[in-house]
């Protein structure tokens, strides 16, 4: 019997010849990540473990992204603790403003295809965009990895998603995931891995593939895996990653479910207030008045997201009464956006561009405070009631293009109906 990508990666990392869904393995991890949101618990657990040496520290990144910048002394003190620990044990360190964990790990070339990566964050599924098994863990897990380089895993069942055709201009991986959420429901892939395949993946640039793998966390996925192609390998090589060991699924691999999605026929999607799986085509939400627009977070704060927004907003002005925040996913994204004139275009259009980080997603930084009755259109990944701190406001989710088009008109708007809304990147590799 053949194996899925998840089964192959967990087999090769545990010295088990043929680990299959349901098995528990103790596997060697290639890289680990701890962010500031979970650092207090994790560092406490490391202390409890009482290990003199942490051999895996050199392959662990500490990332200060949730409190970037820190909104209170407590968070600033967590950062002090992280810096001191990182220096003492020689971990990799990304400080305030460097970027979101899921962006700086691949940008830093810390892992490659076929690797096993753990991070203290549910969106660690992002690494699957590069054909690595990335999954979220907690502090105890992280302490165990830092001491031993290994961790126990239950090998997940896999859902295979075949995407027919390619996404049309103005439609993005965000829309694809929202459509999946509408179909499977939040947590519809709980415990499971998802393999995405088909022409739509080949046509997607890396930024959009990262969105696809990242956003699988809302489906409850333990991992989301894409096969590697020339684009993946070229991207990783340009960031100095180790030689790739691409892993493919066997044709006779066993899946818990096979799903087909008509990528070519998919219109932009919107998740309506409070529920990530209350998803409709943008037409059904169009006209809804909005007061706040956010482009950013680990899901959609990458260069292609900023390019989408700038393509729509360049030389224009967001609607009166609308406030817009843009948070680039990393310092590198910020710099490149500045070089391309995107920061200027967005700022002139009325947006405020903030330091790279992910705090705006849950308003940890205190910069995105909504008033009673305010409606937010956001490229983030979750829209639970009260997520931005005010239960009397509402959050809708859409692609960066949908967010920008909506900021422009003041109402939820199909990006394909505004100039620049059909922008799409031109592939360099393929």
């Amino acid at each position, binding site marked *: 019997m053949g194996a899925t990508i998840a089964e192959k990666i967990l087999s090769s990392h545990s010295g088990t010849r043929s680990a299959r869904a349901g098995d528990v393995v103790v596997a060697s991890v290639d890289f680990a990540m701890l962010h500031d949101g979970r650092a207090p618990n994790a560092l406490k657990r490391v202390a*409890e473990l009482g290990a003199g040496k942490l051999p895996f520290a050199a392959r662990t990144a500490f990332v200060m992204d949730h409190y970037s910048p820190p909104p209170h002394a407590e968070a600033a003190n967590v950062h002090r603790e992280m810096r001191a620990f990182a220096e003492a044990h020689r971990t990799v360190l990304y400080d305030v403003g460097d970027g979101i964990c899921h962006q700086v790990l691949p940008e830093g070339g810390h892992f490659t295809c076929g690797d096993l990566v753990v991070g203290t964050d549910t969106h660690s599924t992002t690494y699957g965009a590069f054909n690595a098994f990335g999954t979220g863990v907690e502090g105890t897990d992280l302490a165990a990895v830092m001491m*031993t380089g290994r961790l*126990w895993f239950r090998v997940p069942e896999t859902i295979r998603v075949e995407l027919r055709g390619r996404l049309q201009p103005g439609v993005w991986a965000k829309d694809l995931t929202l459509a999946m959420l509408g179909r499977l429901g939040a947590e519809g892939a709980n415990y499971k891995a998802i393999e995405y395949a088909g022409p739509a993946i080949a046509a997607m640039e890396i930024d959009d593939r990262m969105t696809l793998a990242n956003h699988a966390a809302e489906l409850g996925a333990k991992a989301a895996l894409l096969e590697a192609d020339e684009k993946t390998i070229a991207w990783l090589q340009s960031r100095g990653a180790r030689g790739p060991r691409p892993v493919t699924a066997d044709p006779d691999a066993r899946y818990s479910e096979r799903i087909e999605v008509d990528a070519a026929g998919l219109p932009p999607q919107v998740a309506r207030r409070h529920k990530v799986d209350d998803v409709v085509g943008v037409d059904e939400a169009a006209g809804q008045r909005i007061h706040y627009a956010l482009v950013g977070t680990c899901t959609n704060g990458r260069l292609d997201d900023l390019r989408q927004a700038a393509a729509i907003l360049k030389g224009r002005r967001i609607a009166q009464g609308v406030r817009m925040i843009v948070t680039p996913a990393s310092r590198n994204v910020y710099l490149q956006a500045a070089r391309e004139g995107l920061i200027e275009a967005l700022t002139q259009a009325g947006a405020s561009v903030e330091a790279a980080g992910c705090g705006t997603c849950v308003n940890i930084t205190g910069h995105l405070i909504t008033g009673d009755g305010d409606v937010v259109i956001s490229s983030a990944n979750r829209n639970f009631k009260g997520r931005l701190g005010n239960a009397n406001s509402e959050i809708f989710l859409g692609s960066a293009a949908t967010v920008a088009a909506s900021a422009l008109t003041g109402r939820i708007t199909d990006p394909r109906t505004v100039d620049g809304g059909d922008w799409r990147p031109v592939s360099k590799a393929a």
Partner: protein
Amino acid sequence: MGALIRGKAHLLGDDINTDIHCSSKYHPGRDNAYVAQHVFEQLVPGFAARLAKGDVIVAGRNFGNNSSREQAVHILRLLEVGAIVAASFGRQFFRNCINNGLPVVECDVTGISGNDEVEIDLALGRVAVPARGIVREVPPLPGEVQAVLGAGGLIPFLKAHPDWRIPSPLTGEG
């Protein structure tokens, strides 16, 4: 291993998000001891007060959903919950329970009522309510997971077995 877990059932429903009901997110600035006393009280007033050492939480689908905060499990350990039986669990919550030595069993819970005496055999993979004639077979937890649970969690396990060698369930030897 193989010891039987026996405790009184306390029922909770579907989609209990521990993030809201048993973490400090719900009680900002409060310590675990305080949060523990108010656990699930929004849903079941006086829940903590009725919980005795070794009692079993019996819940529906997606228990611990959306929460990866390990603290939610620390609270339940502090209350000396004996085990949790639920129709399904949030992924990270399930992991956190095992890592903190709190037995978890995924099992059909229909027919189990509050205050029922529940018996759980982790090694055999069985959940029973003798008084109601309920006996349900579940896939036994893998040996590795049982070993971590038996040690009281991942940290005590690694202190005893820093090389991850899993003791054989038959001999107890590494």
